[in-house]
């Protein structure tokens, strides 16, 4: 079973290709999508188990020796993130089955969703920076398909922006990779980590490092590279938005985490200050956006930015504790953002409006829906035993441990803003009285749509309660980041 790391990439790809033959057979598409992702989920859980027993797994594609081949590296970090993204995609596709009309589903919807998962899982698994670019393209092209699907006027307008920004980012990515190859002469991450300290001129590496921040910052929506995010995400239909909000920005964050711990020596350099400043700006902008808007989708979208900023702050501090916190929070945020986007999409589907002042009283008619949202909201804000708490705690501990006080305090204040923004949705949307007769198209499907959402929320809550059980896995995931030798030795053994 040396091929284990490749299965979470190949299974959805194969299923998607089979689905391409029969675009009009929607039942087969749904079944195949859910079935194959469920198998992928089992495989990735087995992958987590294997990695916890045997340490880092590597696979040299094509059986070429290590620094010359494309290496897939499944360490605990990548295995955990692959499992999380597969889990999310499973529930989001389940949600999408009930959400979309058949006519919509016939346009290769599930094929694009599956290829998005292929790209995301690939980006998490690959150990080669050019291959990382390739997997970025795989999920970006799928996301272009998903964002224009439906073809409304606003969608087309925003997708042009989205496309241009991402094409620009991809071009910069290739350039940065080319510079890196020019300076170091290799593209395998492990080999790069070994050879970068030997480069004569460290300034070249710093420039390349900043270029990579710009590339990944554009994907991860760091301020000041975030301007495309609210507009283009808000026009996407709910399941697509949930998929994007939960996965795409997080791949950017993961890439920063991987490259900055492995390749660029961050501690004490200006890169660290640069990252901290970006993180702080992102948190502040997110906070302002989250309380400024009355559109439920936009409120949650700005919450993405807060989360990205908090995780980035944990990464920038770069100690064992803060990185554990960042990873803990990353997994939490992926799950809970997916839940919230689906819930918010249901609110819009029931009331036919995204504006809070046109909602109200939903909880009297849909009590389960209301309380689900309430738990998700508390979890997002990080109320103790729920999942958001431990990640933030560790990040704050890490920051204080490094003698920084401004960052931790900002992280804590941001929690208040998060709580305020989601409770605002709860009070205005669910509490109070119905302002008018709701006649949205989703009303008959509410219970069916709630099943996947509640199950995912249950996983997220269990993740919070089981923090102690998760801790050995998280620690194991962070080890190769704080001690890059582990990663290098695993890839370049012999």
């Amino acid at each position, binding site marked *: 079973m040396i091929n284990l790391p490749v299965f979470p990439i190949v299974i959805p*790809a194969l299923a998607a290709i089979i689905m391409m033959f029969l675009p009009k057979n929607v039942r087969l598409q749904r079944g195949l999508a859910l079935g194959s992702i469920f198998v992928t989920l089992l495989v990735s859980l087995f992958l987590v188990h294997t990695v916890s027993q045997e340490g880092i797994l590597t696979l040299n594609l*094509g059986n070429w020796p290590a620094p010359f081949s494309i290496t897939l590296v499944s360490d605990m970090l990548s295995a955990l993130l692959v499992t999380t993204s597969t889990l999310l995609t499973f529930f989001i596709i389940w949600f999408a089955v009930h959400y979309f009309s058949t006519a919509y589903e016939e346009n290769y919807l599930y094929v694009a969703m599956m290829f998005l998962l292929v790209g995301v899982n690939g980006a998490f698994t690959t150990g080669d920076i050019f291959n990382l670019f390739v997997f970025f393209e795989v999920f970006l092209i799928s996301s272009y398909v998903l964002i224009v699907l439906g073809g409304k006027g606003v969608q087309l307008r925003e997708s042009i922006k989205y496309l241009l920004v991402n094409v620009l980012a991809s071009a910069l990515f290739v350039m940065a990779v080319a510079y890196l190859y020019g300076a170091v002469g290799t593209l395998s991450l492990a080999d790069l980590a070994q050879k970068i300290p030997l480069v004569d001129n460290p300034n070249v590496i710093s420039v390349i490092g900043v270029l990579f921040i710009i590339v990944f910052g554009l994907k991860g929506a760091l301020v000041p590279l975030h301007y495309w995010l609210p507009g283009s995400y808000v026009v996407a239909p709910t399941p697509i938005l949930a998929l994007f909000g939960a996965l795409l920005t997080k791949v950017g964050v993961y890439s920063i985490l991987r490259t900055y711990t492995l390749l660029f020596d961050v501690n004490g350099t200006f890169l660290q200050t640069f990252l901290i400043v970006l993180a702080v700006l992102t948190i502040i902008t997110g906070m302002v956006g989250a309380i400024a808007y009355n559109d439920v989708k936009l409120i949650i979208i700005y919450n993405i930015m807060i989360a990205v900023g908090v995780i980035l702050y944990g990464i920038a501090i770069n100690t064992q504790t803060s990185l554990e916190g960042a990873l803990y929070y990353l997994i939490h945020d992926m799950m809970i953002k997916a839940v919230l986007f689906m819930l918010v999409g249901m609110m819009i589907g029931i009331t036919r409006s995204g504006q809070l002042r046109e909602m109200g009283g939903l909880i009297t008619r849909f009590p389960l829906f209301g309380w689900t949202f309430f738990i998700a909201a508390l979890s997002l804000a990080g109320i103790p035993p729920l999942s958001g708490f431990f990640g933030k705690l560790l990040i704050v501990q890490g920051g204080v441990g490094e003698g920084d006080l401004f960052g931790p305090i900002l992280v804590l204040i941001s929690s208040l803003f998060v709580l305020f923004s989601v409770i605002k949705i709860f009070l205005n949307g669910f509490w109070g009285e119905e302002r008018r007769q709701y006649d949205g198209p989703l009303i008959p499907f509410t219970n069916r749509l709630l099943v996947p959402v509640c199950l995912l929320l249950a996983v997220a809550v269990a993740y919070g309660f089981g923090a102690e059980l998760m801790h050995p896995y998280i620690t194991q995931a962070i080890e190769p980041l704080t001690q890059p030798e582990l990663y290098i030795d695993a890839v370049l053994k012999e």
Partner: protein
Amino acid sequence: MDMKPKSNKRVNDVILQTAAVIIFFIIIVFSIHLFFSGHYSPGGGFIGGLMTAAALVLLLLAFDSKTLANVLPFDYRRMTALGALIAVLTAMHSIFFDLPFFTHAYDKFNLPLLGEETLHTAIAFDLGVYFVVIGVTMTIIQTIGESE
């Protein structure tokens, strides 16, 4: 009673059409040559597929999409899927021999007419790429071309 004016705008493209039919075969043959030369020298599935697609586009320009659909009744979306399937399955075959994904197998064979040649599984992968490139290119061009 049919008083429709004859379309005067239609350019006389006899030369283009006559030339296209001949050039089409030259391009196809050359693209196949490129496809097979790909293993050791410049060429391969991508460039071969692109050139084949170029030949099809030439027919499309000289005649019209209906003619092309009559002559070559392919569903190019299916062709894309077929190509991707061939490519992925070729890459996957090594899994069953417990070798890393994408490992290719090859051996020497004595073929009739050609003599001793090596055959690689990489050619099957390239064939997949070839179909994907033709399929995608033609799908894009037909989608843009049909919505007048």
